[in-house]
């Protein structure tokens, strides 16, 4: 199936081809040239100017451990198994706290770690959460030097401090 390039032998075809080539090129160049003054630039210079993310944007996960009831539903729903939860029974006679939407916390959360390097940001874990404590925050700048740094333990004090910075209300 070789390409057949037709030889434009006739005088008329030659000049009409020439005219066609020049006119279509000039047309295209004109469209491009208009962008010099008639169209405003759409690109954003990132570190200085930041786009406002929509509310539903699924960025880094955040778990509000005070409301977590250790139900492990998020870990079960996660398709890449990046959520690690551990909990133990509360000792007898401890006062049972309640979450902000009224569910009783019957287990003591001893670990809640998310490996954001594995996370695929699909949002399935946030939809199954009964107390809505696991949410996607709007923080997208969390690059790290080592892959270990991508593991976030949400019981660690520095992450709890991070909550005040990121999560409003």
């Amino acid at each position, binding site marked *: 199936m070789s390409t057949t390039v037709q030889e434009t032998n006739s005088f008329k075809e030659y000049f009409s081809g020439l005219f066609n080539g020049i006119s279509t090129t000039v047309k295209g160049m004109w469209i491009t040239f208009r962008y010099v003054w008639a169209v405003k630039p759409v690109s954003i210079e990132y570190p200085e100017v930041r786009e406002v993310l929509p509310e539903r944007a699924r960025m880094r996960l955040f778990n509000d451990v005070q409301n977590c009831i250790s139900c492990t539903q998020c870990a079960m729903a996660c398709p890449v198994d990046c959520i690690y939860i551990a909990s133990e029974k509360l000792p007898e006679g401890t006062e049972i706290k309640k979450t902000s939407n009224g569910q009783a916390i019957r287990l003591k959360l001893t670990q809640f770690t998310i490996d954001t390097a*594995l996370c695929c940001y699909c949002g399935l874990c946030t939809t199954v959460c009964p107390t809505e404590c696991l949410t996607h925050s709007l923080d997208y700048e969390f690059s790290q030097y080592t*892959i*270990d740094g991508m593991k976030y333990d949400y019981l660690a004090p520095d992450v709890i401090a991070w909550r005040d910075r990121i999560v409003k209300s």
Partner: protein
Amino acid sequence: MLNIDVAKVAELINRHVSGANATAFLPEDTKKLDGSVTVEAAKIFSVVEFLKTNSELPFNSLHVISGVDYLEHMEVCYMLTHYDPASPRDLILKVRLTDRVAPAVDSIVRLYPAANFQEREVYDMFGIRFNNHPDLRRILCPDDWQGWPLRKDYVAQKDYNGMSVYPDGKMNFDDREFIVRQDMIKKAQQAKAQ
């Protein structure tokens, strides 16, 4: 699957291809599930040739060849289709292979060139050899990969060209404590699942 009466197709095949032994499978709930036609593995070439060339119910194109491993037997499913705006139709044609050590079936590349890559993929994933295939190599996995990945009893090789296939834990565990905790999680999940 559209516009197909599997019983009729099976009857047609039985009438025209001797020894094909076509059996139609129609599910109870035809709205939800698809029926299929199963033929003898030895006769697949003549069956597909008949389905391609007959005038009553022709299929002018092959969509895909898919393999399924049911442990006691393996199936190769040929999705035939007819590109014709007037009468579109689909057919799932199956052969059943009981041999797990060296399963083989005739290639249909000479009928549908589309089968070339598709059969290579089935060979790559299930180890089913296609006789008379012009170029039966692995297609998605590397050429020196061992085992047939989509078989249900597949165990991945530990080591490939000096690289570890499953590194111990997908994460970089730096503390043993973490692994201990992870075991606890697994137990909790298993308890939950039961």
